[in-house]
């Protein structure tokens, strides 16, 4: 069937009409081999490699004047085009949703992140069927498609083997998926998902997720080419780097030893100088000042300066490794002889660099996400506890650097991730490389571009229309504007001329060079109840938030607020913002924070969870909700002589619990986010045979992070007890799962690290969690409210 004969506007494409002839027997019948041929891609359609890194800033990579060596980004920029006015939404899932659908994030339900589905259309965390991702279009038009790495578009509560799978990558246009579904992953102990199955934590000693991700991508490319000699492919290479936990081998971090001793203030000055020399910012661009919230480097004592310098060394090594792995994929494509006709779009960051480590940075990012306040002094002590600076970047910690490094990484702009009102949150580097199509090498493209433009650009580049229907559902047109027009013409007038921005109440309106910043008066890492009270329904009037106005053609960095000089422009852009907000389902503002403000989902009815056999890798967001109240864990065991091992364990030493048998005794360890550990054990050895063991946690009161008493039982007889002073209020881990009969990944109790995963040598017949054994209805309601708030807090920072 010729290209012209194929109607590609409706997917799946209908089978071609049989052009042969059929008689009663083969005698006289004429074959039509086209009827069994797969749908071909448009003639000459290129391969497409889409690279997206995570939580990374405009001023980080060397190709954009930053201090982090990124030879692959630089190489592609020199052989292709550099876009210095590309924008994201300022938050993880929203950017990813906008990227793969080509529509504004609220319209496709991602005003917030995937972990937190809200009760309004713009915040449902549910990609609508009438806005299908563009990979679905490629897949239906003869492309092999795959996604590697971070996904972050599947809600927490559907990440198990019971599905539903319609929000997993395979249902959204990808033939193959290998990576993780949530917002983050440990680099040494990820829970790997392959297609629709959790394959768990790799057990190789030297496993490193970013390296393995490139290996898998190359393996897939080789496989595709081995089995389809002409079929074009689309690969979405979405690194977990540089999201926390910042983990990388010392061979990478040591490259940056002493490179950040000058501190963030000086680093920004150095970066902006290089940016001007490279031409990625105009020569007259003004470096924006340090916000009052950030300390001057020179004001810090020796301990803090050295700790912070180490934080950035690790971060830089982590990023360089990610770029190196992109380079390995590029090299493989080149080796296959396909780089010339491969469109590579390499986006450095799904939002600006992340300030979620708070000013101190943290040894364990989950402390921040759980709202556990730690002082500077405590952070230093906990860093010391888990191995000091040598351990920063290893799996002994789940580190995140200081917010001030993020701000410096977003140089020359203000703010960072979450702050959609300013360029520090929204503007990220992008390079485009496609030798077959792009004549100019090393050119700069200053046209305004946005993440929703990527899908339309790719479809135009490969010669496909946006389908009007997919799987029988009429599709909304994409909102983005293809920037293919700019490939040949550096001076082309920009075609994407207006764009709204909104994340967590931080707003902006761009139009024809003017940028209205309308930031909610909240520092991004402040999420305490007092702060949030100011934004409660009936209290917060977004109209009264201070506005800033910038004219970007004259002021690349947003250094000169001209709102006072152009009040009419301020009003025009305000009005336009409200119109766009209504059009794209942004309302209600703060729709992703309903949990804080009295709108909560129905209380879950299930309070008992039974696990038979050896269920493993239960997603961290799907474990029984044992937080902030009493609960019991009961297990029926078959115990042989000398039995040992884990009965049930969640997560690891940086937050989690483990009920296990060691030295003949029943033991329970509870890690309060690596800040404190609490251990209980039976006073007497466990009997053999069929035995029931039980751990009861009796909370002091149903309240956030409550302490309580633990009692261990064997066949209903109390055998040991102890106290847990503090419990985890919202979530033990951002990725590590729960296992029955073993403790996969990092151990909760490091006393059995040498035997990990310390599988139980007897038999675990079943484990039962009772998460609601003693609550009154009033308590239940209070806790439900708290948990919703805590989860919202987690979601903001994920």
């Amino acid at each position: 069937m010729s290209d012209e004969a194929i109607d590609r506007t409706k997917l799946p494409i209908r089978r071609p009409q049989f052009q042969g002839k059929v008689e009663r027997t083969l005698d006289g019948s004429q074959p039509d081999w086209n009827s069994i041929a797969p749908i071909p891609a448009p003639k000459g359609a290129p391969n497409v490699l889409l690279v997206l890194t995570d939580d990374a800033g405009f001023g980080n990579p060397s190709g954009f004047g930053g201090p982090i060596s990124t030879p692959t980004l630089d190489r592609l920029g020199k052989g292709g085009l550099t876009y210095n006015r590309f924008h994201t939404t300022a938050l993880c899932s929203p950017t990813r949703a906008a990227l793969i659908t080509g529509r504004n994030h609220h319209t496709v339900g991602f005003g917030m992140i995937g972990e937190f589905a809200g009760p309004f259309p713009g915040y449902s965390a549910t990609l609508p069927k009438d806005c299908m991702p563009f990979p679905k279009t490629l897949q239906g038009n003869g492309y092999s498609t795959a996604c590697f790495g971070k996904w972050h578009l599947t809600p927490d509560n559907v990440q198990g083997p019971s599905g539903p799978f319609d929000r997993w990558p395979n249902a959204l246009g990808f033939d193959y998926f290998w990576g993780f579904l949530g917002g983050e992953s440990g680099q040494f102990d990820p829970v790997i998902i392959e297609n629709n199955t959790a394959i768990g934590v790799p057990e190789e000693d030297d496993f490193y997720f970013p390296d393995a991700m490139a290996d898998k991508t190359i393996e897939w490319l080789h496989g595709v080419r081995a089995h389809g000699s002409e079929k074009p492919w689309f690969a979405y290479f979405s690194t977990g780097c540089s999201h926390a936990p910042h983990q990388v081998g010392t061979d990478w971090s040591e490259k940056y030893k002493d490179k950040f001793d000058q501190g963030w203030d000086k680093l920004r000055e150095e970066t902006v100088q290089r940016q001007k020399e490279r031409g990625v910012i105009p020569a007259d661009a003004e470096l924006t000042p340090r916000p009052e919230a950030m300390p001057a480097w020179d004001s810090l004592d020796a301990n803090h300066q050295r700790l912070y310098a180490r934080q950035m060394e690790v971060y830089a090594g982590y990023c360089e490794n990610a770029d190196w792995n992109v380079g390995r994929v590029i090299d493989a494509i080149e080796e296959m002889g396909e780089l010339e006709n491969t469109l590579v779009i390499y986006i450095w960051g799904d939002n600006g660099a992340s300030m979620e480590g708070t000013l101190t940075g943290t040894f364990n990012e989950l402390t921040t996400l759980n709202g556990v306040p730690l002082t500077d002094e405590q952070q230093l002590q906990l860093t010391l506890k888990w191995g000091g600076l040598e351990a920063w970047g290893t799996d002994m910690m789940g580190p995140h650097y200081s917010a001030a490094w993020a701000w410096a990484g977003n140089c020359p702009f203000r703010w960072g991730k979450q702050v959609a009102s300013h360029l520090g949150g929204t503007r990220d580097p992008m390079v485009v490389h496609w030798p077959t199509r792009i004549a100019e090498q090393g050119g700069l493209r200053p046209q305004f571009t946005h993440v929703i433009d990527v899908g339309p650009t790719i479809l135009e580049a490969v010669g496909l229309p946006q389908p009007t229907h997919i799987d029988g559902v009429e599709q909304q047109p994409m909102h983005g504007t293809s920037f293919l027009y700019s490939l040949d013409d550096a001076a082309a007038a920009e075609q994407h001329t207006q764009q709204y921005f909104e994340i967590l109440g931080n707003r902006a309106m761009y139009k024809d060079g003017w940028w209205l910043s309308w930031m909610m008066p909240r520092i991004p890492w402040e999420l305490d109840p007092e702060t949030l009270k100011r934004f409660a329904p009936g209290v917060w009037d977004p109209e009264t938030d201070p506005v800033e106005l910038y004219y970007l053609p004259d002021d690349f960095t947003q250094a000169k607020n001209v709102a006072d000089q152009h009040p009419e422009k301020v009003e025009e852009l305000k009005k336009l913002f409200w119109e766009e907000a209504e059009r794209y389902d942004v309302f209600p503002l703060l729709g992703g924070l309903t949990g804080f403000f009295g709108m909560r989902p129905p209380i879950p009815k299930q309070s008992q969870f039974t696990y038979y056999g050896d269920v493993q890798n239960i997603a961290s967001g799907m474990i029984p909700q044992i937080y902030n109240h009493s609960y019991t864990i009961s297990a029926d065991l078959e115990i042989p002589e000398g039995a040992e091992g884990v009965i049930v364990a969640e997560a690891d030493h940086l937050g989690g619990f483990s009920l296990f048998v060691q030295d003949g005794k029943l033991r329970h360890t509870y890690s309060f986010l690596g800040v404190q550990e609490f251990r209980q054990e039976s006073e007497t050895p466990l009997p053999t045979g069929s035995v029931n063991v039980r751990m009861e946690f009796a909370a002091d009161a149903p309240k956030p992070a409550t302490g309580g008493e633990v009692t261990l039982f064997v066949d209903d007889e109390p055998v040991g007890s102890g106290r847990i002073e503090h419990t985890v209020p919202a979530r033990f881990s951002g990725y590590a799962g729960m296992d029955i009969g073993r403790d996969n990944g990092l151990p909760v109790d490091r006393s059995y690290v040498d035997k990990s995963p310390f599988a139980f040598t007897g038999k675990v017949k079943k484990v039962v969690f009772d998460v609601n054994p003693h609550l009154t209805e009033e308590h239940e309601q209070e806790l439900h409210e708290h948990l919703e708030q805590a989860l919202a807090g987690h979601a903001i920072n994920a």
Partner: protein
Amino acid sequence: MSDDQKDVLIAAYLFEDLAKKDFDAVLKLVKDKAITVEGVVLVQKDEKGEVEVSETGDHLGRKGVKVGAGVGFVVGLFAPPLLAATAVGAALGGVTGKFAKHRLESGIGKKMDAALPPGSGGVIAVYDSGGADTVDKALVNAVKKSVAQIDGISARKLKAGLAEAQAGMGG
């Protein structure tokens, strides 16, 4: 409680050179007679929890003299096995055992172990409780300070044991 109760202070550090800086600051206080100490040592605990004494305060104005009982007292409290190699010689099983017993029975051992995590440097000082404020102010680079107490009677007994042992050695 005895009047001559001693404070046992363990200051933990992220950086060895900053520990040394504070160690020197305490020694200066001693030299300037701002405080009276039983002993001060600078130690390093490796990642496996093994402790090494990097420096003792015994060279204070007495360069070349034998390691004193004060240092032996500090080392004995913190890591009795190190007494043999570091402080007072190799043939002192008896006094090492006394320190180990005291650590266990008084609970001071557990507290001291927890005060200095693996991989960190530390300054350990034993001094009269009255000097606590002065010492505390000198340890500006410590990221964690823990204080335990040892009563006067126990301190005297342990020191006497050390002195006897050293006398025997010096024999």
